Structures are given as C-alpha cells and as structure tokens.
C-alpha cells in the first residue's frame, strides 16, 4: 500500500518537474517548486508510515515553514522586478 503511495508521489514529482523545466514564467517555476516540496513532505510522511519510524518527522515541520518563505520571497522579487516573464 505504501509502495503505491510512493509511485503516485513519483508521478506527481515527474509532472511538477516538467512544469519546472518548461516554465514559461518565473511564477510557474515557483509554483512547480512548491509542488515538489509538497511531494517531498508526502514522501517523508509515507516513509514514516512504511518503516514505523519517526526519525525524519521534524524535517516535515522545517519543510513546511521554509517552503512558504521561499515562495513569498520569489513573489516579492517578481513584484519588485516588475516583469511577468
């Protein structure tokens, strides 16, 4: 069951990576990076379920905080730069 979860998360990561490479705008890439971060959080949670170990769970908290800060920084950068592309 957790193996299927990993496979579904892998498919989502492939789709996000496609959007990250294709773009076309910087905001698109920021969205794709945020999605990849969500996939990483899901993978850590699935790993904890599969092996019944909570060793990596504090990383989840850090990822949840840092990822949003990164997206907000990119947003401020786009606003200050004044260009959509």
């Amino acid at each position, binding site marked *: 069951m957790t193996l299927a979860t990993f496979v579904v*998360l892998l498919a989502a990561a492939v789709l996000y990576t496609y959007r990250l490479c294709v773009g076309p705008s910087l905001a698109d890439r920021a969205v794709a990076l945020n999605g990849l971060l969500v996939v990483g959080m899901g993978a850590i949670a699935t790993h904890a379920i599969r092996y019944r170990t909570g060793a990596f769970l504090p990383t989840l908290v850090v990822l949840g905080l840092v990822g949003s800060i990164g997206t907000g920084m*990119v947003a401020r950068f786009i*606003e200050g730069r004044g260009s959509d592309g």
Partner: protein
Amino acid sequence: MGELLALAGSVFVLLAAVGVVRFDDVLARMHALAKASTFGVLLLLAGAIVALHDANDVTSVALAALCQVLTSPPASNMLSRATYLVRLRASEARSPDAPSPSA
C-alpha cells in the same frame, strides 16, 4: 487505515500536479496547487498520525500539518498578488488613454 489515508492524500497531490501541468495560466495553476495539494498533504499527514503511536512522532506531524495550513495560503496569495499587480501595471502602460510621458 493510515496507509489508506496516505494513498488518498497522494492521489490528491497527483491531481494537483496534473492541474499544474494542464492549466494554461499562472493563476489557474496556482489555484490547482494551493487547494488540492494542501488538502492532499493534510490527508497524508493524517495518515501518518493514525499509523504512528509515539506521542513525539504524532505531535511532530501535527505541528507540520499546522505549519502547512498556516503558511501555504499566504504564500500562494503573495505569488498570485505579485503576478496580478505586474500584469495590471503592464496593461496600464499599454492602454491608449493612459497619460503619455511627454504630456
């Protein structure tokens, strides 16, 4: 039970990824990501809470879910606001009734 919740959550994350790839505008993509993937990762973390038994692990996952709920919507809001404002400025610069710089 926890594994089933995690699988359902990962399906929602995949649906968000499909939306991010297939929608044709930044704001539409952000809409897909902000709602579906937040719900998906919440389901995944709920699955982890159900599956794990140590109180230390459960509180870590609950704190991560709280952080995700509190910080993901403002981040998406900032990004969409920046995109909207930049486009608004560009369209104002293009519109014919805007005051010309020489006037």
